[in-house]
């Protein structure tokens, strides 16, 4: 089994994800420079957080249009797992891996703090190890993380069970007060792909994968992916 973490100029959570996948979860993981492209079969591709291209134009816009994304789109279209975290989620949305977009926070400032998320569905490789409605603690760190989608798209996301996570309070209530960035319907994790095999989320599970970091709640995202790959049979 092998994961890839794609590095763009300006990625800065690539090594944190590498640590979470390889040291914490014990799975082989390559760092792949975006110019080198996806040249191997990987079981999962992670687009990490950071500030690719300095967030010029819009966060994720320029990275989303680099050739490496073709390989990632093909991987996703074939049912391969793709996890976009923070800037990776912005890149994923900009490249059409998930519908909607992540844009400037309702209060236009950078927010970096632990946050509560409610698990909205367990019917995905990323969320299968949680319980539905479970509240998990994972930090956010972004200025352009407010999820926006058209009303029709939101209806479809809800109907198809493609909302993975919503911001909530400690008791799991999804309220405006618990919504740090003004995201539509408190949504901060969206599933895409033919088999919900793409997850784009603003919170950082790799920063919540060990108790020493204050929370290990995010680790189950990686472990869920690994479990799914084990069951389906690794191809890498």
């Amino acid at each position, binding site marked *: 089994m092998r994961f890839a973490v794609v590095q763009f100029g300006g990625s800065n959570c690539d090594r944190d994800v590498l640590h979470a996948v390889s040291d914490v979860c014990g799975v082989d993981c390559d760092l792949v420079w975006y110019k080198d492209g996806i040249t191997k079969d990987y079981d999962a591709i992670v687009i990490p957080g950071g500030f690719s291209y300095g967030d010029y134009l819009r966060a994720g*816009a*320029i990275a989303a249009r680099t050739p490496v994304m073709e390989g990632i789109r093909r991987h996703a279209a074939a049912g391969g797992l793709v996890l976009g975290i923070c800037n990776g989620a912005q890149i994923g949305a900009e490249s059409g891996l998930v519908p909607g*977009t992540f844009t400037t*926070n*309702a209060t*236009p400032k950078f927010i970096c703090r632990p946050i509560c998320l409610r698990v909205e569905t367990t019917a995905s490789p990323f969320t299968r190890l949680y319980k539905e409605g479970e509240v998990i603690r994972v930090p956010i760190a972004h200025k352009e993380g407010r999820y*926006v989608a*058209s009303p029709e798209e939101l209806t479809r996301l809800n109907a198809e069970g493609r909302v993975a996570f919503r911001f909530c309070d400690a008791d799991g209530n999804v309220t405006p007060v618990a919504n740090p960035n003004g995201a539509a319907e408190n949504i901060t994790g969206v599933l895409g792909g033919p088999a919900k095999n793409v997850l784009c989320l603003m919170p950082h599970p790799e920063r919540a994968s060990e108790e020493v970091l204050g929370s290990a709640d995010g680790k189950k995202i990686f472990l869920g992916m690994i479990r799914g790959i084990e069951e389906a049979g690794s191809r890498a």
Partner: protein
Amino acid sequence: MMKYTAKITIALKEGMLDPEARAIQHALANLGFSTEALSTARVFFITIDAENEEAAKAEAERMCERLLANPVIHRYEVEVGA
């Protein structure tokens, strides 16, 4: 081929929240300026070679569709001059 300059304005769609505009409006209010409405937009000036003005405009619009605008939140306007 002729040189044309396209002025491309990218703005938020009607009804989209514009947090930066809101912050700027507050700042203006603090300076004593009363504003009824304020929105922000981004302008690009791009010089391109094209057969004619229509072709230059079409090329600039393709740039908007492919990169400059995000159709989820943006609308765009292209003006072309020689």
